[in-house]
């Protein structure tokens, strides 16, 4: 079994118009910038993107939105230091937004990966974000029913990876990446270092390879935060 993919272009090949794509990262940490840029180059449109945010500056998800590829964002916090791209399209009614509380977003993705079609959470009970959702009382407290989230593809960023798809992450760059890996039909991980089988201690594997379909090495990945401080624009 060898899940290594030689190039970024091959890694994102086959993502079709209208696909639902989970993209890892929280702000810039853990954002698979190179995979996102390869996705821009590949050209699919009308994408539904699931990420905590809605991009920042003019790289990564912001660039994908700026290129007009995104029909809908599912996220918890579409504001950022420089969120102009999303904001302008949103106000112009040209991009759809499904706003989800952050913990509910994480849990819905985890549920998608774990085969749990629905669960109850206290989060958002009594608020606008619970509108239209079933509610139920358990042990005297009210809860909102939330549904799983799944995707056609997940694009994630990891630190170490091996050919079976076992992955580790770097510090807070872990965030949504392991969850999304489990919830997509096809998960592509860009890894900063590809190691031989056995190069990751079995105790330290965070994402077991069963959740990963492709691994592509990007040896010196760009950090969104640094790109934005440099005023980078993609393409």
């Amino acid at each position, binding site marked *: *079994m060898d899940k290594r993919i030689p190039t970024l272009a091959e890694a994102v090949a086959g993502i079709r118009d209208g696909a639902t794509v989970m993209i890892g990262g929280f702000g810039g940490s853990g954002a698979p910038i190179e995979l996102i840029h390869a996705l821009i180059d590949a050209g699919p449109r009308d994408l539904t993107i699931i990420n905590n945010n809605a991009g920042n500056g003019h790289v990564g998800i912001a660039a994908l939105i700026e290129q007009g590829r995104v029909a809908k964002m599912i996220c918890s916090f579409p504001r950022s230091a420089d969120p102009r791209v999303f904001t302008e399209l949103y106000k112009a009614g040209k991009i759809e937004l499904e706003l989800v509380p952050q913990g509910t977003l994480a849990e819905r993705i*985890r549920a*998608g*990966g*774990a*085969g*749990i079609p629905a669960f109850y959470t206290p989060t958002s009970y009594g608020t606008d974000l619970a509108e239209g959702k079933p509610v139920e009382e358990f042990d005297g407290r009210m809860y909102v029913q939330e549904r799983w989230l799944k995707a056609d593809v997940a694009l994630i960023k990891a630190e170490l990876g*091996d*050919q*079976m798809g*076992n992955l580790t992450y770097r510090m807070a760059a872990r965030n949504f990446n392991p969850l999304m890996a*489990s*919830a997509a039909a096809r998960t592509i991980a860009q890894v900063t270092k590809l190691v*031989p*089988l*056995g190069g990751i201690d*079995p*105790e330290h*594997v965070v994402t*077991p*390879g*069963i*959740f990963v379909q492709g691994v592509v090495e990007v040896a010196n990945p760009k950090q969104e935060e640094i790109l934005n401080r440099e005023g980078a624009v993609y393409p």
Partner: protein
Amino acid sequence: MSNDLSALKLTNAQIAWRAAQDIEDGAYVNLGIGFPEMVARFQPEGRHAVFHTENGVLGFGEAPPEGEEDWDLINAGKKAITLRPGTAFFHHADSFAMVRGGHLDVAILGAYEVAQNGDLANWSTGHGGVPAVGGAMDLVHGARRVAVITDHVTKQGAPKLLERCTLPLTGVGCVTRVYTSLAVVDIADGHFVLREKIAGLTMEALQAVTGAELKLDGPVADLIVPEV
């Protein structure tokens, strides 16, 4: 069951061998406790399945030599296993996320009874004793392909392939293929469809020890298995 069938029928190892032939290279596979564990021995040359065990190990190796067991490194049957390059450990919730989330390609389980609608009964004999279910009910609704390996009949000679299960169910409509000591049978659209049978066994003799109609859909191949 006639003496003829007893002479013809496959051994458990041979049933496991046959089931192993259908496992693709790189497949993620869970093998039930006991007899199904034997399937791991018979992977075809050049193919390497990745084995999952409910208690939180993926990609493990075979049993260690006696005396070299590490009892913190066991499978769901509580038998000692070994590490391989690429093994990963995880907790029980992540392990069953793999199962329930549809990430396993194949689960191979034993059976008391299998019905033509795919229902499986393999956890409770229904009378007395201590009921114990383990991970079977999760596995039957998780893996993309749920196969059963079993003797074609009970020790008393009664059919195990039935129109309807009589024992408490493990899962509803979950089994898609049954490897028995006499045949390979698919389950499709609520029917048993015969794919392979032991050479020299007549359709009539096979049907006589099967508790539901064996339909035909295309040719029936000889079930040919080496001495293993």
